[in-house]
């Protein structure tokens, strides 16, 4: 059972308003150890230098999309086991199936409310305390 104080999270989204919505939601849940990346490339670079426990990433991003980021993380030993939540539009079943092949832990359909965000995180890391 992870402590909210210990859990480190990286939010990756190329839309700054969406990044803000996710980080605000995390703050409401009580998760404060949050870093942000403005696209998949920056997210990958940040994870290579200082891995977080959990990545919450948008799918639709230029350069490196959410699935490509997941694949890159899974193929790099230090980040191969980190939790990964993909944020997508509704009805992206094929996308989720593709993600599962690469060890996707959970997904979150937009638009989502804070309780859904919390439930989604707890499904990956266990009940937050």
């Amino acid at each position, binding site marked *: 059972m992870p402590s909210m104080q210990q859990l480190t999270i990286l939010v990756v989204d190329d839309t*700054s308003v*969406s990044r803000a919505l996710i980080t605000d939601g995390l703050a409401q849940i009580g998760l404060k150890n949050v870093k942000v990346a403005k696209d998949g490339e920056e997210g990958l670079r940040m994870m290579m230098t200082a891995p977080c426990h959990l990545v919450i990433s948008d799918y639709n991003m230029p350069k490196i999309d959410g699935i490509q980021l997941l694949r890159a993380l899974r193929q790099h030993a230090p980040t191969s086991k980190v939790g990964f939540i993909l944020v997508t539009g509704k009805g992206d079943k094929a996308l989720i199936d593709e993600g599962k092949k690469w060890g996707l832990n959970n997904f979150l359909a937009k638009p989502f409310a804070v309780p859904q965000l919390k439930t989604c995180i707890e499904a990956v890391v266990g009940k937050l305390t």
Partner: protein
Amino acid sequence: MTSSDVTEKRVHIIQGEFFVTRDRDVMVTTILGSCIAACIRDPLAGVGGINHFLLPGSIGPNAAEDERMGVHLMELLVNGLLKAGARRERLEAKLFGGARTVKSHSDIGKHNAEFAQRFLKAEGITYVGGSTGGLQGRRIQYWPVSGRARQILLAGPAKIERPAPLPVATVDANAGELELF
């Protein structure tokens, strides 16, 4: 070439939809009351698009949750443009709608317009004009590739639109008819 040789393709979108095209012959129509249509394009890449959204409720305790829907619909349009070859830093936008459709209600239209303006500012998308507010609904015609937009004010107050299921815009042979609301 005679005028009959010119084929103008019409697409009609309703609330909850968005449409992106690289076809300069396409003209998109939509009918707005308190809803907003964001018309966004990349003039250099020759790609443009439009959405039509209404923040479900409001003003009040659920405003933040409602804005998530607006963010989602704006993001769908922007992502659609980027996927079609647009560059974020070149995007320019026009906004239409946001009328105060019923005087006795909270000014949801204004709230919608303010949200759209905030989104553009936060995302660094240049606002190049448009028309929001007022008491009348609007019929919008937009040519996404050229960025040309035409607004026709509707007689009398527009009715409040009801949320429609999300998704895919389809080519509508009857585009232009006042069928929304």
